[in-house]
């Protein structure tokens, strides 16, 4: 999918750096200059600078910025604790909350003309999903030891030949569905906005889709976080 204008790519081209014209480049420098990479760095820089500016010096009586972050982080902390317990939340809160905030910002940035959502590329979402998927197995093995295999053999011993492939397939399906759902939703939003902008941009045709885009962006970030929390919780609990 090609955007009409991506300002970081234009700046990089003016600087003489090779910007790939296909989805991925051939050389390493081209791959580093691909739009989803540069916009990922933009989102990371944005989050870093904003949190540094608003949380640089914590105060007893919070100002505007600190108040906002206290609501966001406090709400997420409470939500995680409800769903996977206090101990797990304290352990994994930094990782999951970072994913949540990063995905939300990365989704929303695509609504501004001249920007692109890094999550509209399967590479970004697959990377996030693989981290989550590997982590939930690590949690499972570190909690139950080798007995974690009991999660995959079903309720009765004579059902093992039937249940083992089914459980394995449904476990791998998590990897695929979690990444493709986020990627598909955001790419659909981006493509639709691009097409409407080209067709009737002068008549504000993309405006209704932009409103829906805000909703989709936040909902998809929330769904990703919730499913991560649910998977972690399931890996922790005993096999039934």
């Amino acid at each position, binding site marked *: 999918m090609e955007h009409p204008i991506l300002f970081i790519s234009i700046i990089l081209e003016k600087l003489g750096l090779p910007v790939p014209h296909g989805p991925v480049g051939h050389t390493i420098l081209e791959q580093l200059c691909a739009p989803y990479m540069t916009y990922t760095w933009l989102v990371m820089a944005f989050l870093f600078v904003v949190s540094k500016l608003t949380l640089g010096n914590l105060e007893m009586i919070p100002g505007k910025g600190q108040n906002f972050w206290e609501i966001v982080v406090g*709400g997420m902390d*409470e*939500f995680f604790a*409800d769903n996977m317990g206090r101990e797990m939340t304290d352990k994994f809160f930094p990782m999951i909350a970072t994913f949540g905030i990063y995905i939300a910002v990365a989704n929303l940035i695509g609504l501004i003309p001249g920007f692109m959502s890094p999550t509209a590329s399967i590479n970004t979402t697959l990377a996030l999903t693989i981290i989550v998927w590997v982590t939930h197995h690590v949690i499972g093995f570190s909690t139950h030891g080798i007995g974690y295999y009991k999660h995959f053999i079903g309720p009765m011993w004579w059902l093992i030949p*039937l249940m083992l*492939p*089914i*459980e394995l*397939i*449904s476990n*791998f*399906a*998590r990897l*695929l*569905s*979690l990444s*493709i*759902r986020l990627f*598909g939703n955001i790419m659909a939003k981006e493509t639709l906005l691009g097409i409407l902008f080209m067709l009737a941009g002068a008549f504000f045709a993309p405006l209704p889709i932009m409103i829906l885009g805000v909703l989709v962006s936040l*909902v998809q970030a*929330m*769904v990703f976080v*919730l*499913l991560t929390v*649910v998977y972690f919780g399931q890996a922790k609990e005993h096999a039934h």
Partner: protein
Amino acid sequence: MSDLKNEWIHLLANYGHVGFTFVAAIFIGLGGGILLDQKVFDGRTAPWFTFIGLAFGIAAGFKNLLDIVWRHQDKKK
């Protein structure tokens, strides 16, 4: 966070996700079957592992669906 909002988020995540999981399970089963047929056994067992894989994939899809429904019912009780 209120209970109602929490419940809404759960419903949204689980039921918004189930369609994709279903399709992904079927494709992984089918892909595994084809891989077994063509690469491991060099096409000697040609259609059989594909069908078995497809059957397991569909079964896994339904198992995911039922898991979500049952988990939700357990929580209601």
